[in-house]
């Protein structure tokens, strides 16, 4: 695994993988959008407003998954001082922040017609808002040092401390009273959501995942190119 993470090796295999990821992203997001808007049935209670779910649930899933990925990359960077791991963590953050924002806004737009309010300060909503601020804090922190390696280390520690928020988000709907519904997909005993809605949701979630992987690979490559460019310029200056 570490051989694949060598910067030159990474550039090689990610360059080959990238076009396939991009094509798969386009296919699954396109298919997911079509299923979500045209094929999936309206809900018997929520009517057509349930179509917000196909944006809200995948973005919520990505918001937390990307944070977990960022924390793992941060741990690898702290323990093994691996340069690509630092870059991987840093480049995941804006994507995760974007998904979290999307989750909050789409949830608000779904909450208004269904709960009668845009926002409540309950455990689920508040813990996801905390997640959003963790992403923003992380991005601010890694850029706050003159020496990039110190910023990366401080950021990695923040990312790891913030991991406690992930189980809080997941179990907030069970531990506290909330307007938010409990888990209906990743739960013991299997999903309780109807198959006609689960399939479009799964396709959309896969599309979101592929979208993240594609952009993440591109951003890591971008950062590695910038590092190489700096090294070349230093060489020329000598």
């Amino acid at each position, binding site marked *: 695994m570490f051989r694949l993470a060598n910067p030159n090796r990474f550039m090689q295999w990610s360059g080959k993988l990238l076009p396939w990821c991009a094509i798969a992203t386009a296919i699954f997001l396109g298919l997911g959008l079509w299923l979500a808007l045209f094929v999936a049935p309206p809900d018997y209670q929520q009517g*057509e407003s349930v179509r*917000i779910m196909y*944006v809200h649930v995948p973005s919520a899933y990505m918001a937390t998954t990307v944070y977990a990925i960022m924390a793992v990359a941060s741990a690898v960077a702290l323990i093994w001082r691996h340069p690509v791991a630092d870059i991987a963590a840093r480049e995941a953050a804006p*994507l995760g922040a974007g998904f979290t924002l999307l989750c909050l806004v*789409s949830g608000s737009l779904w909450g208004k*017609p269904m709960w009668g309010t845009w926002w409540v300060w309950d455990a689920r909503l508040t813990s996801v808002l905390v997640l959003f601020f963790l992403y923003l804090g992380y991005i601010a922190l890694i850029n706050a040092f003159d020496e990039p390696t110190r910023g990366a280390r401080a950021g990695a520690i923040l990312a790891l401390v913030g991991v406690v928020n992930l189980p809080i988000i997941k179990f907030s709907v069970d531990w506290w009273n909330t307007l938010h519904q409990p888990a209906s997909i990743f739960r013991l005993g299997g999903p309780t959501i109807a198959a006609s809605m689960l399939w479009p949701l799964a396709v959309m979630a896969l599309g979101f995942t592929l979208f993240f992987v594609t952009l993440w690979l591109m951003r890591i490559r*971008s950062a590695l*190119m910038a590092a190489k460019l700096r090294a070349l310029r230093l060489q*020329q200056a000598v």
Partner: protein
Amino acid sequence: MEVVDQFLAMGGYARFVWPAYAVAVIVMGGLLIETIVTYRKRRRALDAAEKLRR
């Protein structure tokens, strides 16, 4: 056209459903454009620097 109108009306929830999809397009499209623009800029700069070195 009635079919289209009916679809766009989203059973009366149009003003919640469409903004949710619009925000998705804006957020994900914004990230996509920013990523591609930076990538291309660096690719070009790196190619130019490597050509200079040879």
